[in-house]
């Protein structure tokens, strides 16, 4: 290279199979897809989506090779996944039961979950409601909505060390029959993933 200096990234392509060499930093080539790069560099950015043609979320991550956590892709940008189910959903008596909507975690990691909704009680009784990854997780919250009319509930929790493909949803618990959840809302935001 006697005529000019060439820009060489840290992971240089194989010269034996390279026809073209860029003359400057590659622009606008940040990974964007339904998975994150398999062999990332420290500080690399990537955008994770559920669909490249019609995504419902776009989450930007930065790879922190120095993290002691297994979840080295750290969330640095994007809006929460959010979905609402406007139907009236009956809660099962004395059992924590998942209701709609749902969300499947795309990667193992730590997440912030939110759920809100209106609980309608036909009688003077108690119901509980909150986001969860399982009935046991939701039950651990013990979120109580009291009264015999309508109550609004909203709860945010951090769900750490979740496995990929875990299904997240609002959960409800009813002490007696006749309790329904309406306009159940679920929000999900990653904190860091693998």
């Amino acid at each position, binding site marked *: 290279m006697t005529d000019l200096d060439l820009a060489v990234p840290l992971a240089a392509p194989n010269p034996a199979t*390279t026809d073209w060499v860029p003359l*400057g930093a590659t622009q606008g080539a940040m990974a964007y897809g339904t998975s994150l790069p398999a062999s990332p560099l420290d500080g690399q*950015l990537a955008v994770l989506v559920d669909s490249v043609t019609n995504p419902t979320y776009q989450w930007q991550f930065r790879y922190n090779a120095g993290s*002691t956590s297994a979840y080295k892709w*750290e969330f640095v940008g994007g809006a929460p996944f959010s979905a609402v189910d406007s139907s009236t959903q009956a809660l099962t008596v004395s059992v924590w039961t998942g209701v709609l909507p749902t969300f499947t975690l795309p990667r193992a990691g730590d997440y912030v979950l939110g759920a809100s909704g209106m609980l309608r009680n036909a009688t003077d009784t108690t119901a509980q409601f909150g986001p969860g990854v399982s009935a046991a997780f939701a039950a651990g919250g013990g*979120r109580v909505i*009291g009264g015999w009319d309508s109550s609004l509930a909203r709860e945010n929790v951090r769900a750490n060390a979740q496995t990929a493909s875990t299904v997240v949803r609002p959960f409800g618990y009813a002490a007696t029959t006749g309790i329904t959840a309406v306009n159940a809302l679920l929000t999900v935001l990653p904190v860091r993933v693998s």
Partner: protein
Amino acid sequence: VSLVAHYVPNAWTDNVTPVDKAHMDKIENGLVEAADLYYLGDWSAGTYKEGDIVVYNGVAYIAVRQTSAAPVPWPPAPSPTVYGTTLPASPVDGQEAILVDSVTNPSYQWRFRYNAGSSSGYKWELVGGAPALVPVFAAETTTSAPYVDLATPGPSFTVPRSGDYYTSFGAQGAGSLKGSVLSLSCGGNGFNWAVPDVNYGSLVSFSDAVRSINASTVVKLQYGINFGGTGTFQQRWLQVMPRRVA
């Protein structure tokens, strides 16, 4: 690496091929061709040789061998964005930086962009990240009317930089006396709700207005109950997100 030039050698045959102008010109032209770079504008389908420079998808490329293939983007360099427990001391307009509480095991990552033209003292503006969410699940009681800590104080969060912050928080509260009023305070801003019946739990949440908070301020939930009885609070949570910081 064997670089293939566009030059095609003469087919010399001893005592047959003349060393004349045509053959020597071809050699000289080949030397010139091999030594120079040629800017050819936008890439289009065709055959390119070593030294040809084209623009493809907004990036200039130089051919290092004869090829008819289109340029392939190289992997991008890692983000030059600063990442650390502090923000750059002398930023330039538009610079981005990521603020964390720990570089080895962060609980939040907040990405800021420096807006030198802002008339605010808080010129680092949040452009990405998840809120800090701090829970305290324990069910604990108080009979105090003024706001107090419970046996397990908090949840709390120490603000890392002076700035404007969104806070939201909530808890499940119950009172032992119907008609008493439960109180929840976040950083001194209080909210009250009535106890509908004895030991009936109510799940409440509040979103505070954006407030200017000084660096190192501890934002903490505290609790109280008015008009008698014992208040029980559990499933307490505090969520903090900056809007812009110094």
